C-alpha cells in the first residue's frame, strides 16, 4: 500500500491540520516528524484535502510545513499472548519497558511494541492441513499464566481459509508464522500468534449475546447483597471527589471473583495506579495461588499524560477485555474515570469547533457512552463456550451533582447504579454507596425477601431520623426510635465495611448469607427496653460486638465464640432470641 505524506498547516493545542493528497481514512494513524522524533496522531475529521488530527503527544516545537507520514492503518492494539500482567499507556505502549529504556520520564515519541518479540510461548496446534477455518476459529493455544490462551485466526479476516501447513508443537515467538492458509482465490495468508485490531470497533465474532444472570461476586457486602452486578453486566459509580470511587474499584479489582481484571486508569492520578502496580505482584490470589498481577492488565493514561491518548485508552481497555472474553473467560473492566474520557472528547470537539451541547460536551456524548458500555456482555462463543465482559465505570460529576450530562447518559445504559454520597463519606461511612438512592437490575446473592425487608427498615429508619431532627427524640415513639436504631445497626455492621482490613474488606457470599440471616432476625425481633436510653446503649454494645466479629476469620474458633457472645446479649433483651440461628 502506498503511504501518504502530508504537511502541517496549523497547530493549536494537541490538534493539527494537515494538507494531504490522496486517500485518507477516518481514524487513520500518522506520524508528525520533528527532528528525530515521530509524534503519533490520529485523523479525527476530514475536510477536502485537509485532515484534522489529534496528536497523542505534546505538540511543542512542531512547525508549519513539518511532514506527516500516514500509515494507512487505523488506531489498533496487538492481540496475542503476553498482555496479562502488563502495564500499558492508553495506546498500548508498555510502561515498564519504556521506563527501562528512557528512565523517569515519558519520552515523547517513544514507541515499544506491546507484545514482547523475544518471549517464547509453547504453542500447541489444534488444526491440521486441509481443514477450513474462519476468523475467530482456534488454530492452537499457548499457556499464559494459569490460562489457556487461544490463538485465533485473525478476527478481521472475512473469508474461509484452507490450512496448508501448521508448525509443530514447540516454543515460538509471537512473530512466528504458525499456520499458512489459502482463501478461495488461492491467495496465501499467514497466521501468527497475534494480530492487530482497531480499538474503536467492537469484537463481535460470537454466536449470541445472553442476558447476564450469574452474580459477579465483589465481596463488598452492600454491592453483592443490595446492589449486585452480574457477569457481563454494567454498572457505574458516580460520586463527588473523595467519596471513595477509586478505593471501591481498587478493592473490587482485588477481590472480585472473575478470571481477569482490566484496570483502566483514565485521566486520574498516577499515584493511585502505582498502589496497584506495586502491590498486586506481592498479593497471592487465594483462588489461583499465583500473584494477582498475573490476572490483571493495567491501562494507565493518567491525568498529566496526553489527553488524546486518554480518549483512546478506554477503547484500548475494552478491546483487550473483548479479546480475553473470546477465550471463554470472565473479564471485569474497571474504568476510572469515564468523566475524564468524556472531557477528552469535549476537548477534542472544542478544537474541531463542533457545535457544543450541554456543558460544552459534544452532542454525540450520549451515544459514545452507550456504545462503550454496549461492548460488555455475556456471550456464547462460536465454540459454544460462554465468556463475559463486565464493565464498571466511575463518574466524576462536576460539583458532585448527578444532574450533568455524563452521569445522566451513563445512567440510561447501565444495569446498576452505585451512587456515592458526600454525606456518607463525610461521616466516614464507607463504602459511601447511598443505600436508598442506588439501584440494580441484577439478582442478589441473597434471598430477595430478606433484602427487601432490610431495605424497608433502612428507609423507615431514615424517615424516623429526618423526623427526629424536627420533633426531637422526645417527640419520637419508642417503636420508631428502635426502628431507627435497627437501621443504624444494619448500616454500621453490614453496609459499612473496612476496605483496608484483610478480613472485613472481603466478605465471601457464604459469610454474607450467614451474617445477614442473623442480622435479619435481629431486625425483625421485638425487644423489651425500659426506655430509649437503654435501647441505645444495647444497640451500641451489640454494634461493637458485631464489628469485632467482622474482623474475625470465619474459620477461626473465635468466630463461634463471638457469635455466642452476641446471642447471649440478645437473649437478655428479647423473648424472640431463640429464633436466632
Amino acid at each position, binding site marked *: 500500500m502506498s503511504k501518504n505524506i502530508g504537511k502541517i498547516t496549523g497547530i493549536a493545542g494537541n490538534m493539527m491540520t494537515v494538507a494531504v493528497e490522496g486517500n485518507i481514512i477516518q481514524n487513520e494513524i500518522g506520524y508528525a516528524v520533528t527532528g528525530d522524533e515521530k509524534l503519533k496522531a490520529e485523523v479525527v475529521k476530514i475536510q477536502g484535502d485537509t485532515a484534522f488530527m489529534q496528536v497523542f503527544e505534546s505538540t*511543542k516545537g512542531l512547525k508549519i510545513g513539518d511532514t506527516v507520514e500516514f500509515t494507512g492503518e487505523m488506531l489498533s492494539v496487538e492481540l496475542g499472548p503476553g498482555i496479562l500482567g502488563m502495564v500499558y499507556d492508553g495506546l498500548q505502549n508498555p*510502561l515498564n519497558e519504556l521506563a527501562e529504556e528512557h528512565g523517569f520520564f*515519558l519520552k515523547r515519541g517513544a514507541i515499544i511494541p506491546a507484545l514482547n518479540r523475544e518471549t517464547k510461548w509453547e504453542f500447541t496446534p489444534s488444526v491440521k492441513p486441509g481443514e477450513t477455518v474462519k476468523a475467530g476459529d482456534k488454530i492452537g493455544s499457548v499457556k499464559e499464566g494459569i490460562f489457556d490462551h487461544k490463538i485465533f485466526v485473525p478476527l478481521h479476516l472475512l473469508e474461509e481459509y484452507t490450512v496448508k501447513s501448521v508448525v509443530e508443537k514447540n516454543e515460538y515467538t509471537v512473530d512466528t508464522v504458525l499456520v499458512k492458509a489459502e482463501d478461495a482465490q488461492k491467495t496465501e495468508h499467514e497466521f501468527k500468534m497475534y494480530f492487530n485490531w482497531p480499538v474503536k470497533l467492537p469484537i463481535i465474532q460470537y454466536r449470541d449475546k445472553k442476558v447476564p444472570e450469574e452474580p459477579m461476586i465483589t465481596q463488598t457486602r452492600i454491592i453483592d447483597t443490595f446492589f449486585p452486578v452480574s457477569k457481563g453486566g454494567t454498572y457505574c459509580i458516580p460520586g463527588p*471527589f473523595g467519596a471513595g470511587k477509586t478505593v471501591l474499584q481498587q478493592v473490587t479489582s482485588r477481590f472480585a471473583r472473575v478470571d481477569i481484571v482490566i484496570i483502566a486508569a483514565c485521566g486520574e492520578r*498516577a499515584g493511585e495506579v502505582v498502589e496497584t502496580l506495586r502491590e498486586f505482584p506481592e498479593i497471592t490470589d487465594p483462588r489461583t495461588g499465583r500473584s494477582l498481577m498475573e490476572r490483571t492488565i493495567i491501562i494507565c493514561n*493518567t491525568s*498529566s499524560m496526553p489527553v488524546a491518548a486518554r480518549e483512546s485508552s478506554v477503547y484500548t481497555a475494552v478491546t483487550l477485555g473483548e479479546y480475553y472474553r473470546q477465550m471463554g473467560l470472565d473479564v471485569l473492566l474497571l474504568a476510572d474515570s469515564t468523566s475524564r474520557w468524556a472531557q477528552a472528547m469535549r476537548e477534542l470537539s472544542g478544537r474541531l469547533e463542533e457545535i457544543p451541547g450541554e456543558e460544552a460536551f459534544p452532542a454525540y456524548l450520549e451515544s459514545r457512552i452507550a456504545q462503550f458500555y454496549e461492548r460488555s456482555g455475556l456471550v456464547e462463543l462460536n465454540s459454544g463456550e460462554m465468556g463475559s465482559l463486565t464493565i464498571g465505570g466511575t463518574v466524576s460529576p*462536576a460539583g458532585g451533582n448527578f444532574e450533568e450530562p455524563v452521569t445522566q447518559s451513563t445512567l440510561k445504559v447501565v444495569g446498576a447504579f452505585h451512587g456515592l454520597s458526600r454525606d456518607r463519606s463525610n461521616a466516614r461511612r464507607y463504602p459511601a454507596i447511598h443505600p436508598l438512592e442506588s439501584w440494580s437490575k441484577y439478582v442478589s446473592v441473597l434471598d430477595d425477601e430478606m433484602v427487601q425487608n432490610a431495605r424497608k427498615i433502612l428507609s423507615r429508619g431514615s424517615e424516623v431520623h429526618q423526623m427526629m431532627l*424536627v420533633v426531637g427524640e422526645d417527640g419520637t415513639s419508642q417503636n420508631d426510635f428502635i426502628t431507627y436504631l435497627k437501621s443504624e445497626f444494619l448500616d454500621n455492621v453490614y453496609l459499612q465495611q473496612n476496605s483496608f482490613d484483610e478480613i472485613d474488606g472481603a466478605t465471601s457470599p457464604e459469610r454474607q448469607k450467614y451474617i445477614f440471616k442473623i442480622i435479619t432476625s435481629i431486625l425483625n425481633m421485638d425487644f423489651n427496653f425500659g426506655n430509649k436510653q437503654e435501647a441505645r446503649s444495647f444497640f451500641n454494645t451489640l454494634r461493637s460486638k458485631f464489628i*469485632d466479629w467482622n474482623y474475625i476469620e470465619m474459620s477461626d474458633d473465635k468466630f463461634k465464640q463471638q457469635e455466642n457472645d452476641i446471642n447471649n446479649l440478645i437473649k437478655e433483651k428479647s423473648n424472640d432470641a431463640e429464633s436466632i440461628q
Partner: protein
Amino acid sequence: MQKVYSKILSVSGNVITVKAKDIAYEELAEITTSRGKSLAQVIKLEKDIVSLQVFAGSAGISTDDEIRFLGDPMRVTFSDNMLGRIFNGSGVPRDRGPELSDNLIEIAGPSVNPAKRIIPQNMIRTNIPMIDVFNSLVRSQKLPIFSISGEPYNELLARIAMQAEVDMIILGGIGLKYDEYMYFRNELEKGGALNRTVFFMHTASDPIVEGLMVPDLCLAVAEKFALNGKDVLVLLTDMTNFADSLKEIAITMEQVPSNRGYPGDLYSQLASRYEKAVDFEGAGSVTLLATTTMPGDDVTHPVPDNTGYITEGQFYLRGGRIEPFGSLSRLKQQVNDKTRDDHRAIMDGMIQLYAEYKEAEEKRSMGFRMNEWDNKLLKYGDLFVSGMMDLSVNIPLEKALDRGWEILAQCFKPEETGLKSDLIKQFWPKDLE
C-alpha cells in the same frame, strides 16, 4: 539566527497575531514596546499567522512594535545560586541580585512514567493535630487548602513550611498581594529558612498573564532539585488566580467555555501541574501544597471542584480552623498504620463522634431538649474543638493521640465510642475509669 518582525496584524485581549514563517509551536518571542520588553509565547499556528500570548499584557502595544522570535520554548535557569533569590513570573530576578542565565532547563516537561513512581511512605509531621492525626501529610503529596478569602491560609502554609522537615521550599505567588509576599519572606527569615527558599513572585499588580507561568517555573525547578536528591516543598498561592488567567486566555481565543466561563481543559491544565508532585526512587521528592480560594465559599465552583478531583485530598480552612468534614488526606493510610496502633481508630472514631456532635448541636439550636447522650456529645464537641481543632494547638502526633483518648474518656463510656475493644483495653486512660 533570530527572526524579527514588526507588523502586528491584530491585538485582542492579551493575544497578538503576526505573519511569520518557520515558527515552532510554544516558541517564545520578545516584544519590545514603548513600555519595555515582554515575553510572549506562541499559542496557535495557522498557515503563516502566528498567535502569541503576551505575558505583560497587550496594553500599549503598537502595531509596529518589534517582535523577535527566540527559537526556543520557555526555559528557566537552574542552580544552587537560586536559593534565597526572588524571580518574577517570567523567571527574571525581581530582587537586586545578579542575572542568572546559566544552565537553562525546559519547563512544563514530560510527565513521570507511572511505572517509575513509588508508593509514598514518609509522613511529613506538622505538629498540627488536624493534619497529623486526622489527615496525615505525606511526602510527594499534592494537596490544596480550600478557603474563602480572609482565612489565614498563608499563615497556615507558612507554618507548615517552617515545621515540615524538607530540604528546600519553593514559593510561587500568583496574584499575591505585596504584604502577603512580605509576610512569607519575614516568616521564612525568622525561621532561618530563607537561604533554602526560592521565590517566584507574581503579585496582584503585575500583568495577569504573567502569573500563568509561575506554577510551571516552580515545578520545573523543584523537579530538578528533587532529581538531585532534595526533598522539596512547593507552595503555590493562589491557584484560583491561575485558573482565572487560563479563563481569560481561553475567552480571548474564543474557546467554548464548559462551566462558568472556564475552558473545558481546566481539569487537564491543573492536573498537569499538580501531577508534578512525585517521589523519585533513589533521589528526592516534590510535595505540593496550594491555596485554592473558593469564590462565594462554594466548593462546587469549577476551580475547587476540578482541583479536588486532581489532588490527593484537601484541607478546608474555615473559621480559622481545619474542618474535620471535607478535609481529607488520601495518602494518610500509607503512613498512619506505621505510627501507633491506635492512630487509625482514633482518627475514624473521633470523627464519627464529631459528626454526631454536630447533629446534637443542630438539635440544640432548634430548641430541643437534650438527653443524656446529647449532652455527652456536646461536651465532647467542645473539648474536640478546643483540644484538637484549634490551630494554636502545636503538639506532636503521639501527644495528640493521647489527648484524643483523654477527651473520649472524659465524655463517654468505652463501649459508647464504637472503638474496637482490644484498643480500648490498651489505651483507655485508667485513672478516669
